[in-house]
């Protein structure tokens, strides 16, 4: 177990080095001003402004956000990432709750599956950017028992909108994966549908739910960042990417600090889900013995 974790960590670092190497290699041999292929501008520029050196990016992490002074930028970006992480987490939890709820409903009632599933699939064809302004406009218009709907809650709803989908589909498949013999056994115990749900269907669904959680975690981060950018909410990594991008003419390495921050928070949330995976699957048959 520990050896496998160590091997994975080494492989991960190796992959990072490989990407960095490819970046620097292309920068070395690629045309400075970019180029055209089949009449379209396809080959990226390799100038320091378009593709800064890796070491310049790393160095930039230690310098303050604005040339004037203050904390090094990695601390500032870390703060933004933490803000976005918390929103993503709320979005993920919301999405998982809605996804599992819908899946249970669909597993229980055939007509719910026939009626809901097409809508659930269709919901994912709506672009998030088109939806974002609508949902953000809820703030100031909705208050629940005196609780004013804040803008960050809209961002969470948008993240949940992306995250619920894989969970709903995965959980539904999982709930239906209980073997017929096991269902018959529960029947022979005269167990109610609810008892069968908790004693058999949910545990049997775990191997299907866990991978869908991994997808949902990544989608939740994407949802929050896109929602932050398209609604201009401050405090998160999405806004940082946007404003650093605008400053990239004079400070090309700055935007990469934000990109790194976004990647780090994505990894953090993914890691959290992997932890849940390990916890839930610790007593299951190992893949090697299957």
């Amino acid at each position: 177990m520990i050896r496998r974790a160590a091997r994975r960590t080494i492989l991960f670092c190796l992959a990072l080095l490989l990407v960095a190497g490819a970046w620097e290699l292309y920068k070395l041999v690629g045309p400075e001003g970019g180029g055209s292929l089949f009449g379209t501008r396809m080959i990226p520029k390799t100038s320091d402004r378009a593709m800064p050196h890796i070491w310049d990016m790393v160095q930039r992490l230690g310098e303050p956000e604005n040339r004037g002074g203050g904390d090094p930028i990695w601390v500032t970006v870390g703060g933004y990432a933490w803000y976005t992480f918390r929103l993503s987490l709320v979005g993920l939890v919301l999405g998982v709750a809605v996804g599992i709820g819908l899946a249970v409903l669909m597993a229980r009632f055939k007509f719910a599956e026939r009626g809901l599933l097409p809508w659930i699939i269709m919901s994912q064809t709506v672009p998030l950017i088109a939806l974002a302004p609508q949902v953000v406009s809820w703030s100031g218009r909705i208050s629940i028992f005196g609780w004013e709907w804040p803008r960050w809650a809209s961002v969470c709803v948008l993240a949940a909108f992306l995250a619920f989908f894989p969970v709903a589909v995965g959980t539904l498949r999982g709930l239906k994966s209980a073997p017929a013999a096991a269902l018959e056994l529960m029947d022979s115990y005269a167990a109610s549908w609810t008892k069968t749900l908790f004693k058999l269907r949910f545990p049997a669904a775990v191997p299907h739910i866990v991978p869908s959680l991994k997808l949902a975690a990544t989608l939740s981060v994407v949802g929050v960042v896109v929602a932050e950018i398209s609604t201009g909410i401050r405090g998160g990594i999405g806004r940082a990417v946007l404003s650093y991008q605008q400053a990239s003419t004079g400070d090309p390495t700055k935007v990469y600090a934000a990109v790194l921050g976004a990647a780090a928070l994505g990894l953090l949330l993914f890691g959290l889900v992997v932890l849940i995976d390990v916890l839930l699957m610790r007593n299951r048959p190992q893949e090697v013995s299957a």
Partner: protein
Amino acid sequence: MTPNKILGASMNAVVINKVTKVFNPDKPNQVDALLDVDLTIAPGEFVSLIGPSGCGKSTLLRLIASLIGPTAGDVLVNGKSAAQARLDQDYGMAFQQAGLFDWRSVVKNIELPLELKGWDKAKRRARAHEMLALVKLPEFAGHMPWQLSGGMQQRVAIARALASHPPLLLMDEPFGALDEMTREHMQAELLQICAASNTTVVFVTHSIPEAAYLSDRVVVMSPRPGQITEIVDVDLGSDRDEGTREADAFYDSITAIREALRGIEHAEIRGGVDDR
């Protein structure tokens, strides 16, 4: 023929009265699974159902378990309707696949029916350990099912079926997937367990020697539609051991069952010829 010594249906373990089962009635894929089946099983009796595939023996077992309902006729278990007997947990059931839950330890698998009955934790844990001792797996309580061999898994399944001490045990080819040695061993153990707890057993099998070794009576069934063609009494006494397998009476029973099954086969072949 039926050892119906005690008068009154309420004293019988199982009463099957003119039961007919038709799947998908009035549809192109209609199947007449059982036709006018009558069978009475006394408490403590071990009855096997044997016959070619499609003769409805599993269907009959599921009717007793009230997992499906009859098209006509009725089934009584312990003097009540089969449906009520299921609600009251008057029987335990074991299938060809052990069907243990992968995510529960061995002891928790055995506790499952007790948990559903609402027993408190200490009581059901104690009973589960008692059952594990009965099936001779006391040291495997904490193991996960997938860490056990097929035979051990099947023993756990039997322990689970017997956990609530039901008066009736329904088994559908429980040893079908086991190798011959394990199988004979399990048969001997099953007889011991049932004798000790005075459990009535209805046992579906494909194997003639298995039916002969285990049963007081062997119900021979014919297919299309499923009917009881003959009931063979097995006179091997109640103390059966490895020596029983070499006794002349054992071979006589095997021959009797085989001939009853042959009768079905011949009738089928004749029927086929007549059709042409």
